[in-house]
């Protein structure tokens, strides 16, 4: 079966009668990623920036899992299989590690400056 | 159940699915709500007896058995208050977060063979993960109440629950390792037969780790002596100081729900699940194949077994609560980090070495039941199992009794 043309397929995305495709997951991943980038860019709170990073990693993870899923793959198409899931797992683990270090840095910053506003971290400005 | 509805009654597909999902959801909800009613009454009676009192005696005739219902009606009629400085949305949301987490964990909990909301391949992991979410509601409640007592209670609870997840996870991993599966149905089936097949009695290490699990389970559901989050002698009432009426009772339904849940987990992981100490069904000659009613009888027996074990666990938690004094926060942390975690780690390693050294147990030839091996390729080269049912939520939402 030929895939539907682009405009039509975006309409179909909201139809509940059709099975989902990989592209559905990609759109979700894109929204999460963009939200994360916007969060990192606009938040002045260091914890907000951290949450943005988590969202970005999560958006990437959605894509990995979508490509890995044999359920979502079209008939006859190959999926990434376990590799995608393993990479998603590593991303989750590293995100946890990153959050731990970033939190420690934030705590240090708070101890020194009594705030978590990242705009105030300008001690090294020449 | 979906098969039953579609084939026997002849409902169309979507109706059967929706009906089956609704029935299981309502059943689980009733287990939590009804269980909370019964256990609150039991707690009143148990505490009364321990303190040499009578407890409720009048409501509903003998034994005051309608006491919790009367309490519930009183709570319904109470005014729903919110402190002035509170964060309204979070304050209203918090009890539901707690309750939903407790409810979600029940989805993967098997009550008897195949009597499970959704049989998950990673059920143990799922339950532990979702149970950890319950603390979210508590933290939100503590923050949103705009009261320092609530905030103190919430912070204590956060520190406590996050710390105790480490030894709890280590304890839970041991039965998973012995069974070779994270599916709770398979784990329980592997302990079928007489009670010496239970994983508590598998080897000395699992016996010790069972008691570590009990300690951590009591701590992770915030029961005394670990109930620092609501220490009434220091923090008024802890995180639910500002709550009243129905919202308050949601916290309590969640608490009693998770008490039942961790007890049922203990039963499934260590105490044979729905397999009684004596294999009554097998002795009477019942099996899945014999007749039409035998499977139902077996499931009914299993249900009684599991609910009995879990209720016993809850009663023991009450006994502990009314016997031991509350620990200080540093003592709670010491118990977790200096005792539970190292003991659990050593016992984990010990159980693993035992499994390598004495895979057949102490008595050679006393074969353990195989259970249902879902990952068939583990058993030998080339022996791939026929594709077992995968877990995804659109299919077979309910499999409560065929």
């Amino acid at each position, binding site marked *: 079966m030929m895939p539907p043309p682009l405009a039509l397929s975006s309409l179909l995305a909201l139809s509940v009668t059709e099975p989902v495709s990989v592209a559905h997951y990609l759109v979700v991943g894109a929204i999460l990623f963009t939200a994360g980038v916007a969060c990192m860019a606009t938040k002045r709170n260091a914890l907000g920036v951290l949450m943005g990073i988590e969202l970005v990693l999560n958006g990437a993870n959605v894509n990995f899992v979508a490509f890995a899923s044999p359920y979502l793959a079209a008939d006859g198409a190959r999926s990434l299989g376990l590799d995608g899931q393993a990479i998603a797992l590593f991303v989750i683990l590293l995100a946890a590690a990153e959050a731990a270090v970033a939190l420690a840095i934030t705590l240090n910053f708070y101890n020194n400056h009594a705030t978590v506003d990242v705009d105030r971290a300008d001690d090294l400005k020449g | 159940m979906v098969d039953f509805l579609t084939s026997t009654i002849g409902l169309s597909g979507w109706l059967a699915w929706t009906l089956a999902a609704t029935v299981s959801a309502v059943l689980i909800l009733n287990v939590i709500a009804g269980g909370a009613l019964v256990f609150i009454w039991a707690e009143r009676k148990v505490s009364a007896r321990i303190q040499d009192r009578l407890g409720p005696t009048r409501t509903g005739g003998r034994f005051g058995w309608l006491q919790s219902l009367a309490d519930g009606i009183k709570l319904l009629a109470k005014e729903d208050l919110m402190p002035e400085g509170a*964060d309204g949305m979070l304050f209203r949301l918090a009890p539901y977060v707690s309750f939903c987490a407790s409810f979600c964990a029940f989805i993967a909990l098997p009550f008897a063979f195949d009597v499970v909301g959704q049989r998950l391949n990673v059920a143990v992991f799922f339950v532990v993960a979702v149970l950890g979410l319950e603390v979210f509601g508590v933290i939100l409640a503590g923050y949103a109440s705009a009261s320092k007592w609530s905030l103190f209670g919430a912070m204590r609870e956060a520190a406590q629950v996050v710390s105790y997840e480490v030894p709890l996870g280590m304890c839970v991993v041991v039965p998973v390792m012995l069974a070779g599966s994270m599916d709770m149905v398979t784990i329980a089936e592997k302990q079928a037969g007489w009670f010496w097949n239970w994983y508590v009695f598998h080897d000395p290490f699992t016996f010790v780790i069972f008691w570590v699990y009990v300690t951590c389970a009591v701590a992770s559901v915030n029961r005394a002596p670990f109930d620092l989050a609501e220490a009434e002698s220091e923090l008024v009432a802890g995180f639910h100081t500002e709550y009243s009426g129905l919202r308050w009772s949601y916290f309590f339904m969640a608490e009693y729900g998770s008490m039942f849940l961790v007890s049922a987990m203990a039963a499934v992981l260590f105490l044979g699940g729905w397999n009684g100490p004596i294999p009554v069904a097998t002795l009477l000659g019942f099996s899945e194949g014999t007749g039409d009613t035998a499977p139902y009888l077996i499931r009914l027996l299993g249900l009684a077994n599991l609910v009995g074990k879990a209720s016993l666990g809850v009663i023991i938690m009450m006994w502990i609560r009314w016997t031991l004094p509350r620990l200080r926060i540093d003592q709670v942390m010491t118990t977790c980090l200096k005792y539970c975690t190292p003991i659990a780690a050593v016992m984990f390693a010990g159980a693993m070495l035992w499994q390598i050294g004495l895979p057949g147990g102490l008595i050679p030839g006393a074969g353990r039941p195989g259970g249902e091996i879902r990952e068939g390729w583990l058993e030998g080269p080339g022996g791939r199992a026929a594709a077992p049912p995968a877990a995804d939520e659109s299919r*077979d939402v309910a499999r409560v009794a065929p």
Partner: protein
Amino acid sequence: MTPTIPMADLVAGGLLPLAAINFHTLFFLLFAAIACGAAVAVVAADNVVRMALFLVLSLAATAGLFFLAGAEFVGAMQLMIYVGGTLVLLVFGVMLTAQAPFVTMKSAGGDRLLAGFVGVALLAMLVLAGLSVPAWRQPASGTVPEPTATPLGMALVGVRVDQPPAGQPVDAVRSGYLLPFEIVSVHLLVVLVGAAYLARAKRRKTPRAIEVAASVEPPEAVAEHAAIGRTRAAASVLTGEPS
């Protein structure tokens, strides 16, 4: 027992509008809506605790999406680690910003506008890229995957049971993820130590009186007099007399 409800059966049921619903898609749309909505709410919210709540919602809904895609283990892991990690974030948020002036930290309106523009442009580019490959737009085959938890675990210890090479037994050792797994383990350990080091309690710049007293050398060199000397010194500092 098919994952999607057979269409023919449903049409025969006579209730096409309801019957034609693909439940998998329905649940997908539900979880996707929660995940995306909560992610946008994280950006829009100013209060740290609310942001954390929305982040948790988004991450939990994403775990639901993983379950729907047949990746149970990754979904459960997401619930356990990501959501648990966010819990700690939340606690930090409350600890560091619970005082009134810190609760809301608004960004400038111009920044928000700019971020909105850039975000929409980025989103448009990503979505177009995602939809541009025809193979990705083909509807799902609905092939029910086998449970992946055990093969995944075996892959992490270096045995790829999911791809047995032709003509060899299943348990033939292939290059799995043993090395990355070990590296990640050591990495986590290093991070644990490093985070504890970074966040350790700092020595105060101005020591407290009791610490000054403790660091004063006892007047007598005799060992048994040291304790008495220390208490004397402490008493003199606390009462303000010269030692």
